[in-house]
């Protein structure tokens, strides 16, 4: 028995007919082929599958696709095209804050959410915010540096705009 759902994914209306047990992550990856959302544990521990559901980061592996019906979902592909995370991307690149790249989607989502709430997070606050994002490659320091640098740049730019 399948269910028809509609939702807005990266600004585009999407309609699909799915099994009710389909997770949002599987809908995004397997049906819509938005493979930038990664699956690392499928139990909400690793953070690789984070997406924005009506602007809030959620684990796409723990949300059923039917729960997202009628809502807005933003993935890394959408944020990339919108330009909203351009400075974060630039700082991650400059600081080499990723190696294999599998956790990067989740790191960017967490950083994006953190910086939209906190303009000047301390390093311990950034580390705390990343407590649900597992990275096996980097040792985290470069990620903290990149987020910190982005926060400072945004603060400087905001100051210059006054």
């Amino acid at each position, binding site marked *: 028995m399948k269910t028809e759902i509609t939702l807005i994914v990266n600004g585009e209306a999407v309609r699909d007919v799915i099994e009710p047990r389909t997770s949002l992550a599987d809908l995004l*990856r397997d049906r819509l082929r938005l493979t930038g959302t990664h699956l690392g544990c499928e139990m909400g521990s690793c953070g690789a599958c984070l997406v924005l559901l009506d602007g809030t980061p959620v684990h796409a592996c723990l949300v059923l696709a039917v729960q997202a019906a009628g809502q807005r979902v933003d993935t890394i592909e959408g944020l990339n095209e919108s330009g909203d995370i351009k400075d974060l991307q630039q700082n991650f690149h400059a600081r080499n804050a990723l190696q*294999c*790249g599998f956790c990067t989607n989740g790191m960017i989502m967490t950083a994006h959410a953190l910086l939209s709430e906190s303009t000047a997070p301390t390093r311990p606050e950034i*580390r705390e915010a990343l407590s649900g994002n*597992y*990275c096996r490659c980097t*040792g985290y320091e470069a990620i903290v540096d990149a987020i910190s640098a982005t926060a400072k740049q945004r603060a400087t730019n905001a100051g210059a705009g006054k």
Partner: protein
Amino acid sequence: MSKDHIGQSHRRENALRHLAGRGRFTTDLSLPRMLHAAFVRSPMAKGRIVEVDVTDAAAAPGVVRVFTAQTLNHVCEPWVGTLDHFAGMQSGPQNMLADGQVLWAGHPVVMILAHSRAEAEDACELVMLDIEDEDAIVDGDAAQMENAPLASDGIDSNMCFQTVLETPDLDAAFARAAHVVEGDFTFGRHTAVTLEPRAVIADYDPSTGQLTVHHGTQTPYQFQDVYARHFGLNESKVRVIAPDIGGSFGMKLHVYHEEMATVAASLLLGRPVRFVADRLESFVSDIHARDHRVSARMAVDADGTILAMDVDDMTQIGAFSTYPRTSAAEGNQVIRLMGAPYKMPDYRGRLSVVFQNKVQTSQYRAVGHPIACAVTEALVDRAAQLLDMDPFDIRARNLLADDDYPHVSATGYQFEKLSHQASLEKLHDMMGYGALRKEQARLREQGIHRGIGIAPFVEITNPGAAFYGVGGARISAQDGAVVRLTPSGDVHCAISVTEQGQGTETIIAQVVADQLGVTPERVKVTTGDTDTTPSGGATWACRGAGIGGETALRAGRKLQAQILALAGAILQADPAKLTLANGAVVDAATGDERISLAEIGRIATYRPDTLPDGCNSSLTAAEHFAPGGYPFDFTNGIQASYVEVDIETGITRLLKHWVVEDCGRIINPLLVDEQIRGGVVQGLGPAFFEECLYDDAGQMTNASLADYLVPMAGEMPDIEIAHVETPTKDTILGAKGVGEAGTAAAGAAAMNAVNDALRPLGAQISQTPMTPLRILTALGHVSAGPKRGY
């Protein structure tokens, strides 16, 4: 040597794709008519299979085929994980699905192929598995008891491999020693937990006989060889493509039952088959690492001179030795790396590699290094304590002198040139040792228990055939590169070393760019495809920069000579008076541009008719390089850890970590530092958190990412790094490896730091991970439980 780009912190172009959500992982790939595999696994550690009934599963919705050992194993030649140079080594033959016997909890028994993974998993629930429980061998000491049951068929005892290294004067050294310090150490079993699980898509096309395997591995050529030989295919009909890989660290270069079964299923069904391990099955099928019990003693003179070490290592590896690299290499390196940084003249190391009914253990980042380093450095600290010496002073007395090379260690390793003394001094300055000790003393008066630990190390890099080739394994010791100038004057390099995010493609571009006088942005590097890159060993045991880099350098120089010869013909000039710079052929004396590379490419490609008769217009150069000279290029370094132990809760806070490292010529400082940082955290994880816990029946009890603790951002310290540069003279490039350095000594430094914090309280810990409960037990605040695994 041109150093325009070698030595610069170039950024990784391939990182941009990941940041845009455009990674290309095996798990992202979907092929037409692709089936999804799921496995029914043994629920118990050991048993006889009485009956497997797959009738209901085969009839389940979406199921296309169900395989058991009887219907699948016949297509694959069994594999045996032994090597000839490990004398007397044994391991039973392995095949894809359990046949007659299950040998660990997680052993695959039935393979189900369905239109979706969910449907395959549903059908797994319908398989009736009747297995008669047998006594499992869970503990390595119990495995060695007389009359202990065997961990598997095909072996005559539970001893996989034993060896002893001994210098003639060992006993005399202990007899004349002023002091002997000793300890018993336990190093827990842990696992790689790559964020992308193991993934493979096998795609056999019966119309052409071509097998293409998309495989998340660091060693595509090794798997091309394995698939060809074990499935009876011509090598030319096997293509292995390793796209983006979500972490490997050694874990993804071993042969696994599930990957082999996926290939077999595709061969039998003639359509693509996908297997992606979910996290739960990763824990019970990915190789585990370490799992050592070590008894060690160290003889020292009255002045703190280290005379000898005597070490006994027992390591527990599961029911089989892994293939094709075996499960004995780890222990072999443990006993050979003991005492490696020191002048220590005498040594005895005994190794016992023991079978048991658990997941296989095998090579994982920094193979053997963390164990050898932790044991050695714990004993050095105990000697220092006994003699009331500062940890820096006792190491200064014993470290190999920077001018005392070449040197052969007591265990037989040949060191070309290391820099222990310079590294020790640099670390002392960098961490502000004196001030740190004062801070520690001041805080102790306030009841705050901080500790400082240091650990010098030696790392094995750039291995030649001595690792595996001499033992009969078909694992390449050489690498290959093809460099070409494109018709518009850009450069392309196809190379056999692979990329897992450490920056292989970037450093290769830098090296090639410097040989051809272009910027790295104009060098496109392709890796990870056996059809499009030359054959080679790829990336393992720290060979990407040292061996891959040298291969690229030599190929680049070969093409440079071809370009200059062609330019000489075009310009009617002596090629010896020309060189390459700024994307052009220039006058070597004046630097003036004579002809651009774009123009060379244009003429050679579109107007070869204008070249003089007999002029060779080839703009492609191939080169293979196998390391010669020393069997390995050893690197060295030293790490320090600063911790605070809460003696009420047993929780350790990691305040700071320092590393001084000497990896020879540094190609890209940014990437080297990030390799070290990542490596340190991979060493700190198992020092404090990571452990595969088993119950007495051989069941892993924390096999999920909610229960198995990995290091997260909040617990990890900032890591300060400095370098000494001692290039190897074995190569033109002079680079050595750096991938294992961080992991090699981080845990050792941390254990010394924790013990430094506990010392005034009379407590000592010799087991990793150093969990809060174990620290409280060491402090006597809780009584030791009856079991090791808590």
